[in-house]
């Protein structure tokens, strides 16, 4: 029983990271029909921005050493700027391009960022201690939960509430929802298309930074492709959640986290290396039952 509870907390923790990444991917897909493969690399940048540029195997924290109240806004700003630059240089000139073209362009952005990291920081993974004081376990009855997991889940919930309030209560949020549903009609009503897309990239960058910090503090390792598996699971989450639905992205993220952790825990020992293959089998099963995802949206189907 305690084992199951422990696994559920782990699932919520991993699901939080996937849900945050999936929200960042889903937001851009909603507005731009862009499947942004570079999202994982935005996450990597958030982690690498914390350390001193060098080829050393043990990373030396730089911005990462600052007080969190200064460090978090600084890292966020860096990632947001990278996201906005990739929009301005790559996606803005491709506004009229088809969805597959946009996706391939995002591969290019991803490749450029990864190689940039390779050039500045080297190819070898690095160890880094971010917020190492936070892995003290908290006892909840018999349950031992690392403080970091509680923080991860809490931060995720807080960001989701903040995003919801932003989208429902502010003028920019209403503009974004209108543009996500019918971009051209929003423009006919005077909504500035490039502004709304820039906003989506910025928010996507903020969400990516949150994943960077939480993920790095949990794993303690940096690698030039560290964000790629996170982005991959985020895509899976948005697909099974229902492309274009933010609620779907969150549900999908937690579901994928749940599937992965449960397989990890209950799969027989010798099958465990194939955990991800089993996870994707589940994904295919879900899509066979619900081809347009758990939370299908009309916006996606009706988009001209």
């Amino acid at each position, binding site marked *: 029983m305690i084992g199951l509870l422990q696994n559920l907390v782990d699932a919520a923790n991993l699901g939080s990271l996937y849900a945050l990444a999936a929200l960042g991917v889903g937001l851009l897909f909603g507005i731009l029909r862009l499947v942004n493969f570079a999202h994982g690399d935005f996450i990597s940048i958030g982690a690498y921005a914390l350390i001193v540029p060098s080829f050393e195997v043990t990373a030396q924290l730089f911005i990462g050493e600052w007080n969190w109240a200064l460090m978090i806004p600084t890292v966020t700003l860096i990632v947001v700027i990278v996201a906005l630059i990739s929009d301005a240089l790559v996606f803005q000139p491709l506004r009229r391009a088809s969805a597959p073209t946009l996706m391939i362009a995002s591969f290019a952005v991803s490749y450029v960022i990864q190689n940039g990291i390779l050039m500045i920081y080297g190819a070898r993974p690095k160890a880094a201690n971010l917020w190492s004081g936070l892995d003290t376990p908290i006892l909840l009855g018999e349950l031992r939960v690392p403080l970091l997991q509680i923080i991860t889940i809490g931060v995720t919930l807080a960001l989701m509430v903040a995003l919801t309030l932003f989208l429902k209560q502010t003028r920019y949020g209403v*503009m974004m929802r209108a543009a996500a549903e019918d971009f051209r009609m929003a423009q*006919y009503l*005077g909504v500035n298309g490039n502004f709304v897309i820039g906003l989506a990239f910025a928010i996507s960058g903020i969400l990516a930074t949150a994943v960077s910090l939480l993920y790095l503090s949990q794993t303690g390792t940096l690698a030039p492709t560290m964000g790629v598996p996170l982005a991959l699971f985020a895509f899976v989450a948005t697909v099974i959640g229902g492309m274009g639905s933010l609620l779907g992205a969150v549900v999908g993220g937690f579901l994928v986290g749940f599937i992965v952790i449960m397989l990890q825990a209950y799969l027989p020992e010798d099958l465990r290396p194939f955990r991800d293959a089993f996870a994707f089998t589940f994904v295919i099963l879900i899509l066979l039952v619900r081809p347009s995802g758990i939370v299908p949206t*009309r916006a996606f189907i009706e988009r001209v």
Partner: protein
Amino acid sequence: MLDVNDIHVTYGRLRALKGVSLSVKEGEIVCLIGPNGAGKSTTLASIAGGVTPHRGTISLEGKPLAGVGPEGIARLGVSLVPEGRHVFGALTVAENLRVATYMRKDRSAIAADYDRVLALFPRLQERIGSPGGRLSGGEQQMLVIARALLTKPRLLLVDEPSLGLAPKIVDQVYDILLAARKMEGLTLLINEQSSHRILKHADRIYVIRGGHIQLHDTAANLQDGEAIKRAYFGFGEEAAIDEEDAA
């Protein structure tokens, strides 16, 4: 106010407009009528900046609109109510209306405009909190007209306001358009497939078919409907037009 001069639009290899010219003067009601696929919607979308003609010019009060883009043209006071309504289905009626006001600089006037416009649409007031996607077809048509009015346009472009609506509802839609025109001092350019309702309201009529303007005259001169019928169905001119297309 509006001058469209010899615009050509193609979709891939399909030539939708083959040199359309028309003009609208301040305060007029002008109607563009034509059969399915004639190029009516393409003409309005070109004016609103949603489609880019590869030849010809469009100008508003003498200023060319090329390169301004849909959001810029909206800010210049041209509002399009497109075919098929395009309600934001997941947004409430109130949010649908609010989107239209975000670009406006005269923030202080918005609240009064909102009340005045909504007074024309009692049905929308009742449904102000419902998602746009839940409204009936007639209510959605009302919503998109109200929404366009809240951009405070000088020129309102309306694409087939009667499409898919019961005749009684169409009457209401036209009553509202005419009331709004009086109240807001609007100029109107309306697309319709048939002339029978519009003939009594319009000042001037253009008939479009096959991407060409076939006929243009004042509504007063066209009241008997014969000339419109000939232009609409192309009796006696088919050969001449086909030759021109082939050239």
